[in-house]
């Protein structure tokens, strides 16, 4: 008996180590390389650790006179947070409506929502641009936030989750004189925490990592999100692998840190009875 337990514990440890190693190794390597001289990055035989830790690349990126990356990081972060909050609100209310309420045209509207899930983004890149151009949103912060707010994927996910709330709770509340809206706010929202965290992180990342849409809709340097700024470095033809790596490190870390802050909620476990 003890042997079996030992083996399973060993296996667990193997899994942990494998997961940790494979997940973190590429990132670790990326961070290490960002401190290397260019020669070290492509040296042979492979040099894992830098021969000399250099901050040149960091200097180049962080203190570049062409692009203010610190400003862009903060600005992008703020916008991303606003976006995340707004999108969670818009999509969760819709999800609740579709999950719990009956209204005329429900089936039709739901079909509308679902169709948008299957259209690849590139096909509507140019036509979306025309739409936002007509709405005079080009070169403003709104063009970054508003078009992406409604997400059928998120509505779908949250709706599944809400579909499986026990009806009994609501029925009791209704008898007590509550309204559908109150139910949403006082019953559904409080328990939506973990779902919101997972979807929220997804939304945040979607906003953070998006660079093509900002590239075509924004020409004002002050409004560049940080990934677009990184593209400027990558697009230049210089052999600056180190600088690109620094850019990659710098733009990856805010989401990672945000995640680490919120991971407690994910740790708590997600009640997914809705998906069943």
């Amino acid at each position, binding site marked *: 008996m003890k042997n079996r337990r030992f083996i399973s514990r060993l296996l667990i440890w193997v899994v942990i180590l494998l997961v940790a190693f494979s997940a973190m190794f590429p990132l670790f390597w990326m961070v290490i390389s960002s401190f290397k001289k260019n020669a070290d990055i492509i040296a042979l035989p492979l040099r894992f650790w830098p021969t000399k830790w250099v901050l040149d690349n960091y200097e180049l990126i962080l203190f570049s006179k062409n692009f203010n990356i610190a400003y862009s990081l903060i600005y992008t972060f703020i916008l991303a947070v606003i976006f995340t909050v707004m999108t969670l609100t818009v999509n969760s209310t819709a999800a609740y409506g579709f999950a719990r309420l009956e209204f005329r045209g429900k089936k039709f509207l739901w079909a509308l929502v679902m169709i948008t899930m299957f259209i690849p983004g590139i096909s509507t890149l140019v036509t979306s*641009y*025309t739409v936002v151009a007509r709405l005079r949103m080009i070169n403003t912060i*709104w063009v970054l936030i508003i078009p992406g707010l409604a997400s059928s994927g998120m509505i779908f996910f949250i709706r599944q989750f809400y579909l499986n709330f026990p009806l009994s709770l609501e029925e009791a509340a209704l008898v007590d004189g509550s309204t559908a809206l109150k139910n949403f706010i006082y019953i559904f929202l409080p328990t939506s925490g973990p779902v919101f965290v997972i979807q929220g992180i997804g939304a945040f990342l979607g906003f953070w990592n998006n660079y093509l849409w900002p590239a075509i*809709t924004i020409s004002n340097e002050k409004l560049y999100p940080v990934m677009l700024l990184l*593209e400027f470095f990558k697009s230049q033809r210089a*052999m600056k692998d180190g600088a690109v790596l620094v850019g990659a490190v710098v733009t990856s870390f805010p989401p990672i840190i945000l995640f680490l802050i919120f991971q407690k909620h994910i740790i708590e476990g997600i009640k997914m009875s809705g998906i069943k």
Partner: protein
Amino acid sequence: MKKLLSLTLALLIAMSVMMLPASADEKVTIQLWIQPWDTFQQEWMNDWVEVYNDESENVRVEVTFVPDSAWAEKLKAAQADRKTPDVYCVNLSNIAKEAALGAIQPLDTYLDESFFDDLQDNFKAAASKDGHYYAYPYQVEAGQVLYYRKDLFEAAGLDPETPPTTWDEVIEYAQKLTNKYTFGYQLNTADGDIAWTSYGMQYNFNGGYCITENWDKANVNNDNYRALLNVFKTMHDLGIVPDAALSNPFHVQPVCEGSVAMMCAGSWNFQLIKDDYPEVVDLIGVAPAPTRDGDYTNVSSAMGGWSLAVDGASTHPKEAAEFIGWLLGGDPEIMLDFCTRAGFGKCSVRKSVSAAVAENEELSSNSWLVTLMDKIVPYGVLEPAFPWDISLEVGQAINRVVVFGQDIDAALAEAETNINNYIELNHTAGTNPSYKGE
């Protein structure tokens, strides 16, 4: 409920206020879009635009740098919305096509002939269509330049001052240069990369590109291409090139590192070598790319280059054209400044500027630049203007022979079939805007 409504209303009002356009300016504003290729290029552009804006009374130029990875999307979106910039950057080989599409308008409507006289002859041809000048070239780069390590040559018993001039010599030298640490040569291995980095070689072997002048059928299943494919196959068979290229097709990193003794890459590497590998600058020699018979005057390289053009739908074409003329075709000082800041390796397209460069001591003592300007650029040919898919077929044919071991004849036959199919399906025949006719 009321609260919610008034809140929404307030939000909407706030939003619409933010969306109001800025009050109209008295000045005419010219929008200019260009890719940020190099730091010095951005600085040069910003500096001179500032000068122009200060000097000009009624025109203001605004520059937007658009990363190349988003260039096509951004431009096309703007074109679809009919809100394009007044001036934008056009690749030399696309000028005729863009003119045919109506995307750019003739400059000589607003600019005097004298602006264009100063252009070197092959660039005059590149910039014109049907007798009109549609763009002003400002920068030219050779796509294929031979870089080699003089010290490795010496170590292998080769004369560092006589680089190989024919492909046979390349193979011979590479065999001597290949050892445990170094490959003699590097060829690109991804089909897309092979396709465009071999433009010069293709033109040199075939006397033209892979399709006929009229773009009506493939010109690839012939002895010229057989010979070309043989070069690739031989090099791989002999093991003198790495099985997978060690760098992306733009950089001569492997030569700087000493992992590869010779390779062909673009002339834009001049400045990059100086910046990133200053210690090997003296060890690297530059020569025209190898040719079939050693004669570099018979096209050793394809030329890539950039020009500025006025958008076909621009509402201020006169001011736009005048700016272009002022910047690129006016006082040679401006372009000389460009070449100086570029340090090594940006070739001028204008006779007056080239003359000024030749007089500049620092630049003219640079043997690399001299080689480029004397031996490569004057004999360069423009990159193909026909659709990329066709060029890709050649790259894929070479890739099939090298990686998949396909027989050369079969590979070329397949390429020919595919190219002809493409031409038929896409109605490419007869659409060459530069076709002079029989």
